[in-house]
C-alpha cells in the first residue's frame, strides 16, 4: 500500500518519526531535573531575606510566565548562547563552550519550566504547617537544617500534582523547539508531511504519538502520587 510505504517502506519516514519521538522524550526528561530543580531554587530564593534577590527572582518568574513560550525559547536560545560566548571569550579560545541545539533547547525549556514550577514549589513550601517549622527551630535546629530535614522531604509529595501539570506543558512545549532547529517529533512529522505532501497522514500520526506519551506520563504520575501519599492514606 502506497501510504504504508511512506511510513515503513525503504524510503519511509517512520524511522525519522520514531527518532524524533525519542528526541522529544529525551529533551523533556533531561529538562526535568534542571527545570524543576531551578524552580525549587527560585522558590527558596524568593524566601530569602535579601530584598534585591527576592525581587530578581519574582521578576524572572513574572517575565517567563507572562510571555509566550515560543518567545521565551527564542530569547533564551539565542540570548544565552551570545552570553556564554562572551564569557568563554574571557578565558581564551581553549575553553570555547560548545552548545548543541539539543542542549540549548534543554536550557531554554528549563528556564521556562523553572519559572512555571517555582510557583508550585512556593505554594508547596507555604503549605507545610508553620507549627512544624516553629517546633524545629525551638528544638535548636538552624534555618537551613529545618528546611533540609523538615520542609524538603514533604515538598515533593505536596508539589507532585502541580509538577505533573507542568510536565505535560513541558512535553508539549518541546514541539516549539522544532521551530528553532531540533529534529524532534513535530519537526520530523512536518518534514515528512512537507516532503510527501501528505499532512493528513503524518500530522495525525505525530498527534497519536504525543497522545501515547502523555497518557503514559499520566499513568506514571498517578502511580507516583499514590506512592507518595501512602503514608497519608
Amino acid at each position, binding site marked *: 500500500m502506497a501510504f504504508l510505504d511512506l511510513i515503513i517502506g525503504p524510503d519511509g519516514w517512520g524511522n525519522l518519526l520514531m527518532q524524533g519521538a525519542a528526541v522529544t522524550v529525551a529533551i523533556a526528561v533531561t529538562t526535568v531535573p534542571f527545570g524543576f530543580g531551578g524552580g525549587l531554587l527560585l522558590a527558596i530564593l524568593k524566601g530569602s531575606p535579601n530584598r534585591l534577590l527576592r525581587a530578581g527572582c519574582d521578576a524572572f518568574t513574572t517575565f517567563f510566565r507572562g510571555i509566550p*513560550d515560543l518567545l521565551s525559547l527564542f530569547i533564551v536560545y539565542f540570548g544565552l548562547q551570545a552570553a556564554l560566548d562572551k564569557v568563554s571569550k574571557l578565558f581564551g579560545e581553549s575553553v570555547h563552550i560548545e552548545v548543541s541545539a539539543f542542549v540549548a533547547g534543554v536550557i531554554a525549556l528549563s528556564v521556562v519550566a523553572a519559572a512555571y514550577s517555582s510557583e508550585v514549589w512556593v505554594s508547596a513550601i507555604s503549605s507545610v504547617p508553620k507549627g512544624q517549622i516553629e517546633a524545629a527551630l525551638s528544638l535548636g535546629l538552624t534555618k537551613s537544617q529545618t528546611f533540609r530535614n523538615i520542609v524538603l522531604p514533604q515538598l515533593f509529595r505536596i508539589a507532585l500534582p502541580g509538577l505533573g501539570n507542568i510536565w505535560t506543558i513541558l512535553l508539549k512545549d518541546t514541539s516549539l523547539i522544532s521551530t528553532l532547529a531540533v529534529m524532534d517529533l513535530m519537526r520530523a512529522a512536518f518534514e515528512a508531511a512537507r516532503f510527501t*505532501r501528505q499532512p493528513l497522514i503524518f500530522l495525525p500520526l505525530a*498527534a497519536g504519538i*504525543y497522545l501515547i506519551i502523555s497518557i503514559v506520563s499520566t499513568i506514571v504520575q498517578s502511580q507516583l502520587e499514590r506512592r507518595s501519599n501512602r503514608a497519608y492514606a
Partner: protein
Amino acid sequence: MLENLSSFIGLPLLEDNWPRLWSGLLITFEIVITSCSIGFVLAYPLCLARMSKNWVLSKAVLGYVTLFRGTPLLCQLYLVYYGAGQIRPFLTDIGLWTFFREAYFCCLLAFTLNTAAYQSEIFRGALSAVPKGQVEAARALGLSSFAITRHVIFPQALLVAIRPLGNEVIGIIKASALSAIVTLPDLMGATRTVYSHTFDFQIYLYCALIYLALTETIRRVLLVVEARYSRHLHVTASAAVAAPKQRWGRARQVTPQTP
C-alpha cells in the same frame, strides 16, 4: 492614543515599527477574544456531556478533551491548516473551503477547539467543588433543578472558576503567538517581520514586554476580581473554596495551561 505610544517612550526601533506591531496586537486581541468566547460557550455543554450518565457521550467528550490537551497546539494548528489544504476538493464540495482557506479561521478553529477542551475541564472542576450537601439541601427545600443550578451551583462554581478561566485566557494569549507560523500577522508575526527588516534582535524583547503587559494586567485584574467576589468567604474563612496558597493543588484538575 496608543498608536502614538512609542513617540512618548522615545525608542527609535519601537517608534519606527509601532504601527505594524499595533496592528499585530489588534489581531492578537481578535483571535484571543473570539476563540476564548466561543470556547467558553462550548465548554459548558461539553462539561455537562462529560459528566452525563450516558456512557458514550461522556467517553466521547473525554476522548476529545484528552486529544486536545495531550497534543501540542502547534500540531493541532498544523493539522487544521495543512490538513485542510490537502482535502481542498472535498472541502470545496461541502462548501467549507472558503472557511478553511483563511489562515485566520484556521487559527480560530484550532484555538477554539483547544480552549473549549480546557475550559470544559475547568467547569467540571468548579462544579464538583460545590458540596453535594448543598444541592441535596436545596432539593429538600423544593427548588427546581434549574433554580438549584442558577442560584446554588453557578454562583459558587463561577467563583472557583474565575482564576483558572483567567489563566486560560492568559494561556491563549501566549499560545496565539503560534498563529504567526501559519502566516497571520499577529503581534508575534509583526515582530518577525520587523526583525526581517532591521535584523535587530531587541524587537523580540519589546514584543515580550508587550505580551507581558497584557498577561500581567489580566492576572492582576483577576486577583482583584476574585478578592472582591469572595469577600464573604474571607469573613468566615470558609473551607469550601480553597485559599489562594493551595491553588496549585487544585490547579491540576482545573487550571491546565496551554499550549
